[in-house]
């Protein structure tokens, strides 16, 4: 394949995904400053291997796989350099089920936009507190709009891990937001008393 034709076809596939790739990278990488380098390495690797991509198969999952591996490597290098730990992906049973009634502040259920609009940074913070695999699953689902089997393919994990990871991630994010909403309510109540 001539290089210009290859680049043209690669860009045709890539351009509709750029916002999603960038958003996923920003929320997954250890620092916003690292995003350009991580994206560049991932895109360079995917472009190098584009001859191996089978036309008509799932390009979004294929290219997100490159980005995910690059983010993992960059985060690992950073942790090693900084000698800081990150919550480990401890072995968790795939058959874990969420409780029927998730603990959610009523305001969060009745008017989620009110809570979310005022604590957008807290939501980002709550996502960063998740275990890496739970964070990846949640973001690939929310930002990448992937189905469970596609997420399993990108992360190289069983689909059961995707299902349990997503359920746990959702529960933890809700608990985090509910705690913030409760705290905000109690502060307001104290202030008004």
């Amino acid at each position, binding site marked *: 394949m001539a290089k210009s034709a290859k*680049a043209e076809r*690669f*860009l045709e596939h*890539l*351009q*509709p995904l*750029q*916002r*999603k790739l*960038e*958003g996923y990278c*920003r*929320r997954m990488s250890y620092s916003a400053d690292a*995003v*350009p380098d991580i*994206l*560049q390495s991932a*895109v*360079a690797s995917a*472009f190098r291997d584009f001859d191996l991509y089978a036309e008509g198969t799932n390009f979004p999952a294929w290219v997100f796989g490159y980005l995910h591996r690059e983010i993992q490597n960059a985060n690992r290098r950073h942790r090693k350099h900084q000698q800081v730990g990150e919550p480990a992906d401890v072995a968790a049973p795939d058959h874990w*089920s*969420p409780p*029927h*009634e*998730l603990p*959610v502040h009523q305001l*969060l*259920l*009745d008017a*989620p*936009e009110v809570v*979310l609009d005022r604590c*957008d940074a807290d*939501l980002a913070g709550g*996502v960063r507190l998740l275990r890496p695999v739970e964070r990846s699953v*949640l*973001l690939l*689902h*929310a*930002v990448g*709009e992937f*189905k*469970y089997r596609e997420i399993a393919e990108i992360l190289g994990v069983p689909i059961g891990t995707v*299902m349990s990871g*997503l*359920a746990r991630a*959702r529960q933890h*994010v*809700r608990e985090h*937001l509910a705690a913030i909403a409760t705290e905000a309510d109690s502060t307001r109540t104290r202030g008004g008393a």
Partner: protein
Amino acid sequence: MTCAEARQHWHLYHDSEGDVALHAEVAAHLADCPTCAEWFHLQSQLERQIAAHLATDRADPGLWARVLASAGAGPLPTRSGGRPGGRGALAVATFVASVGLLVWWFSPNRRDAVDTGLARATAGLHERVQSGREPFEFASTSDREVEEYFKGRVPFPVRCPPRADAGFFVRGAGVTDIDGQPAAYLRGRVGGTAVSVLVLPRAALDAFPAQRAALRQYGIVHAPAGAYATVLREFDQNAVVVVGAADPAALARVINAYGSYPEHE
């Protein structure tokens, strides 16, 4: 299925995952249990809001031009023999402009998208149905009943968008024609807003060459029509238009959900 069993499967139902039989069982339970239907609605509403916030992020406008050029996948500036501001700079500027144009085109918030004949026709139908001027043939809030209704009435399958994906709740259906071609429409609501889904044979786009050309180029077309927003995509042998006085991003979620059935993947 009990309430506890239905709620146990909420994640699968919300994400349109799991097998068809499970979805049918949960849907049947929800049709009979308003408490669970409300519970599912609130859970889904919260998850959609969280997902929307996570998906919205500030973008660095020059980032992709730099990434692509450095990765060797995009136009590179000339390294020598060119005047400053010559062909290399022009290539980068053209590339950045084209990326910007694509971002603008796909942005659901752009206000100046091209008005189109099909968008106007669809918005007109939506308004007539909402005002009662178009005969409303079949009223139902059941996805399954509405899908059955279309069998034999139009020569292509019509599905309701998975409600868990886009929050489209069907209220009824009908058959009309657009430029002599049979067309199916679904009437429903997304949040508190009336939204219609129009399903046409792909050949109907022959009467709307501008939209057909835009679809070939961009894959999805947003177009305002009076007070309404519309979004158009093709799936298999059909063209699908979603219309309503709603956020174009919400309409895009409905149309993407429509295309998420296995036969469309």
